[in-house]
């Protein structure tokens, strides 16, 4: 798609006035008469056998309406669905164990829900939690991935006889041969630790059963309202049309809000139906650290075989992936790691295997980046080490290995998370690298700025890394576009929205085709009464999949407008121009109808209807891509490190980004800026610290450190557009991009600042305390 009146323009976000003035509805804003409140008793222990739960005192407490344990759920108690079955890879092993609504015989991670209290207020419900007596026999907890796999380790799921959750091997070419021919092999162990998604809005659910209408309405902070509706209907024995799920405005999703079903999602609607009163649960911040899914501990043993000139001959990677206590999301995260490692590079020989491991920690599902970080970290670090040993500049070694612009579609010959071959659709990686290097002033920094600062006793460093983000995967999304008699255009789509700017970008796409002002287009997302086909917002796919569906529906409506106007105006369809909120005959602007008038005429109260026509100016369309597409980018950063205090300061941050055709640059830039903030958090601040017993040591924002506006620089950004041939708009996804390469970039830049000290960084996150240890170790080794 070429830029147009709206396409490619930085239209200010239409939803912001509502959001900024407090008029947007969030789940916790839902207040219903007679509403009850739920609170959950959660396990202090990470692993143990549940002997008994005595809730009798809680039930006696004034204001308590009900207390439910697993025993009280009867047949309704059942493990959740396996959301993503394993892909068809030969030799793959996968042990499926999905989460349960309330722990019944065993507790498998700290914070696992044991009982639900329903009371007249949340205060009373929390008072009652303290009345419940739990008898639990502690078991040794497994948190260390290697120890978990040793014989005799305590088992998270006894039925498998092992803590192995999965084993997958993918390869291409002949790595052993490549290794034998290599001028240099660099091998390291890498560790990338776990963080929380930490959306500003925690999860929340309100459920209301209208017994007369036999209608269940659920407000849910989910990223996937339609699958939640369908699943709830099945679980509760209701027709799908009897259940309405509304995902209103949501304060950030980042992946964990697409997990389903969370225990609370299963229990609240059920209890609301039984009790005949609306019921609310809002997750508090402490609960969020246990009850909402997380990512991303992996340990990689990887090696890179290169020729003397730095050309990549092959990569071998063996890694462990922490899947937490259950694995409902299948292998999405580790397969993303496996695929994303290859990045924008030509890697002729690749041998990658991973083992996913059950541990007594909260469940792991995709969080923004979804495993891609790890792959990028491993590959980029290996390239840095190889460059250093070969005496090749860091940028140059990347340049020599990039997939050339004329090589697309480029097939990496392995399978991606969408079960489709990992084939890149389009890109121009050398151009992106060139642009980023130019923007950050790489040459000048290396040649003059860095040495000048060094002479003044200051240690500054620079980093440049490349990455690919597989985005915009299927299966499909849909949209319905309606021109109303008022002339307003209504767009309904099934994806939920968590701040991405859907209300603006989807409106732009439709306004572009219907020739109306963008603020005359009203977008509705995430309400199953409005639209009930689709999957959800995840995998950086909103603009690609739902965006193309909106575009396709708008084109259909445009055709209807033209056909009707041509008939009414007695003109050839080719003569009809749709613009300015009207349809008119080319060259005769007085022969026109407003879209509102056409909408009225398309829905007459009297008179004969031409056979074969549909009433109204409305159309529904669907879009499902053949496979995911490859967004890409280059990040560059300058840091300064104080080696005496291990303090790190980011001086500049540059992103050159290619998400195909850009619908709205401001929205894309905001996504990238937010992603970078997330990435900086990952790289330097955020780490969930579990002790050997599976106890989380920092379950509050006092100790779990999110970067604030003071810690995140304003990103200098440039867009590069290589349109995707896989969809009519030519768009690729952008939601996760900013967060993906930051860890690798941070490591490279900090290491560069400390060059000469012997400090080598192979782990993320890198707290000042850890950096201090590394500096101290390097000093010791040098001494």
């Amino acid at each position: 798609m070429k830029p147009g009146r709206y396409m490619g323009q930085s239209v200010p976000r239409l939803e912001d006035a509502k959001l900024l003035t407090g008029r947007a509805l969030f789940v916790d804003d839902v207040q219903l008469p007679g509403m009850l409140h739920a609170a959950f008793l959660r396990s202090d222990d990470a692993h143990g056998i549940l002997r008994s739960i005595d809730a009798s005192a809680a039930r006696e407490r004034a204001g308590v309406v009900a207390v439910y344990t697993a025993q009280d759920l009867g047949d309704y108690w059942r493990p959740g669905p396996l959301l993503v079955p394993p892909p068809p890879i030969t030799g793959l092993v996968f042990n499926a164990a999905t989460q349960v609504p309330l722990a019944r015989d065993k507790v498998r991670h700290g914070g696992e829900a044991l009982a639900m209290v329903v009371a007249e207020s949340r205060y009373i419900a929390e008072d009652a939690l303290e009345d419940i007596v739990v008898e639990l026999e502690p078991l040794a907890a497994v948190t260390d991935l290697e120890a978990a796999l040793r014989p005799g380790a305590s088992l998270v799921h006894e039925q498998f006889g092992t803590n192995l959750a999965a084993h997958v091997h993918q390869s291409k070419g002949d790595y052993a041969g490549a290794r034998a021919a290599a001028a240099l092999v660099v091998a390291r162990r890498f560790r990338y630790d776990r963080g929380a998604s930490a959306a500003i809005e925690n999860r929340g659910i309100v459920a209301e059963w209208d017994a007369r209408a036999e209608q269940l309405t659920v407000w849910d902070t989910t990223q996937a309202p339609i699958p939640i509706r369908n699943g709830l209907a099945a679980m509760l024995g209701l027709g799908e049309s009897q259940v309405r799920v509304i995902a209103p405005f949501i304060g950030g999703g980042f992946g964990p809000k697409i997990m389903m079903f969370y225990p609370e999602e299963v229990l609240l609607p059920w209890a609301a139906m039984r009790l005949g009163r609306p019921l609310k649960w809002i997750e508090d911040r402490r609960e969020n650290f246990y009850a909402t899914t997380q990512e991303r501990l992996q340990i990689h043993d990887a090696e890179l075989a290169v020729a003397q000139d730095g050309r990549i001959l092959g990569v071998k990677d063996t890694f462990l992936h922490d899947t937490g206590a259950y694995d409902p999301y299948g292998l999405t995260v580790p397969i993303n790691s496996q695929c994303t490692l290859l990045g924008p590079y030509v890697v002729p020989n690749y041998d990658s295997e991973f083992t996913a491991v059950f541990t007594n920690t909260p469940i792991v599902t995709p969080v923004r980046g979804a495993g891609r970080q790890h792959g990028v970290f491993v590959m980029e670090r290996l390239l840095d080490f190889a460059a250093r040993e070969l005496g090749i500049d860091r940028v140059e070694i990347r340049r020599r290995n990039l997939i050339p612009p004329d090589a697309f579609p480029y097939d990496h010959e392995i399978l991606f998370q969408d079960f489709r071959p990992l084939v890149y659709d389009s890109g121009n990686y050398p151009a992106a690298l060139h642009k980023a290097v130019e923007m950050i002033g790489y040459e000048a920094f290396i040649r003059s700025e860095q040495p000048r600062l060094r002479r003044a006793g200051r240690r500054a460093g620079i980093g440049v890394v490349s990455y690919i983000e597989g985005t915009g995967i299927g299966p499909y999304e849909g949209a319905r576009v309606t021109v109303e008699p008022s002339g307003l255009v209504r767009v309904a789509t099934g994806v939920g929205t968590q701040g991405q700017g859907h209300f603006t970008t989807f409106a732009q796409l439709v306004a572009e085709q219907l020739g109306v002002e963008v603020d005359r287009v009203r977008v509705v997302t995430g309400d199953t009464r409005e639209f009930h086909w689709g999957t959800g917002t995840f995998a950086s796919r909103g603009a690609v999949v739902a965006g193309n569906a909106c575009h396709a529906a708008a084109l259909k409506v445009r055709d209807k407008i033209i056909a009707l106007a041509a008939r009414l105006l007695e003109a050839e369809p080719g003569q009809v121009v749709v613009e300015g909120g009207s349809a008119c005959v080319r060259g005769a602007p007085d022969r026109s109808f407003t879209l509102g008038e056409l909408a009225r005429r398309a829905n007459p109260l009297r008179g004969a209807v031409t056979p074969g026509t549909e009433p109204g100016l409305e159309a529904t369309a669907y879009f499902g891509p053949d496979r995911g597409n490859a967004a890409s980018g280059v990040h560059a950063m300058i840091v300064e490190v104080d080696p005496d205090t291990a303090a790190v300061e980011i001086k500049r941050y540059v992103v050159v980004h290619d998400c195909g055709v850009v619908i709205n640059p401001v929205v894309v830039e905001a996504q990238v800026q937010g992603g970078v903030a997330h990435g900086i958090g990952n790289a330097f601040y955020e780490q969930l610290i579990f002790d050997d017993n599976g106890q989380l040591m920092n379950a509050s924002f006092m100790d779990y450190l999110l970067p604030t506006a003071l810690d995140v620089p304003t990103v200098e950004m440039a867009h590069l557009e290589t349109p995707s041939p896989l969809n009519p708009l030519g768009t690729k996804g952008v939601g996760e991009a900013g967060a993906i390469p930051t860890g690798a970039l941070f490591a490279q830049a900090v290491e560069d600042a400390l060059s000469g000290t012997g400090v080598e960084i192979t782990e993320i996150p890198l707290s000042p305390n850890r950096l201090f240890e590394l500096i101290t170790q390097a000093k010791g080794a040098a001494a």
Partner: protein
Amino acid sequence: MKPPAFEYFRPASVLEALDLLAARPGAKPLAGGQSLIPAMNFRLAAPEALVDLNGIAALSGITRLPDGGLRLGAMTRHHAVETSPLVAAHAPLLAETMPFVAHPQIRNRGTVGGSLAHADPAAELPAVMLALEAVLVLTSRTGERRLPAAGFFTGLFATALAPGELLTAIELPARAAATGSAFIEQARRHGDYALVGVAATVTLAGSGECDAARVTLFSVGEGPVLAERVAVALEGLRPDAGVVEAAAHAVQGDIDPPSDIHAGAAYRRQLARVLTGRALERAFQRARAHQSNPEQ
């Protein structure tokens, strides 16, 4: 994160507050609530009653004492201290510290007295008061007593406040001639609990030697720590680079820092040394400036 039920009182005078506290041993005075309320929401604190001091106007305000010192009402908000011209002119160390006390939102509500009575080992103000040799005024139904900061902080979150006693004011002595001070802390993010912080005041003799040094550290022990060995390493000596470095090294003998997930004891020791050196350098520079221009 909802607190258990509690009774709430809002007295209008110190006397009324003291009566309420005396009548209810399970009651807690509520100042700015920036530590107590989160603890209650976590259900770690469950006082039977709160005696809210925010309605007692007499407890707020900053005034100049006849001897040139300053008097801070215990309920004076951090923000008021931060923006006070009196504090800027007569207690520059305190003025320099205030922006490091948490975040603006917290400083708008939190109070000086609340922070001191809370005695968090990672808090800035106890260490600064110790460096400034502040005198704390404690009021009970039987009268008033005045304690130097050194006698007020008795351990981890522990103070000399007796049951039924309220911290009502803080008095800062007048600043001596040829005195300079500096405050430095390192935190993970601005506004976080410091990993280590240092407050230093130094006074120069006419001949340029260090006449007196008072260096305090926080987040390195059970409470604010007065670095006596650092002072000994400075007093009577010309504070050149070597002397300052040696003094900074001496801090190791003054502290026994704890470990936590953000900083191990070894890292805290390193920070204590480096930050002590930097704080001293800056304080001596300022003392020299003060010496040559006492109006400064």
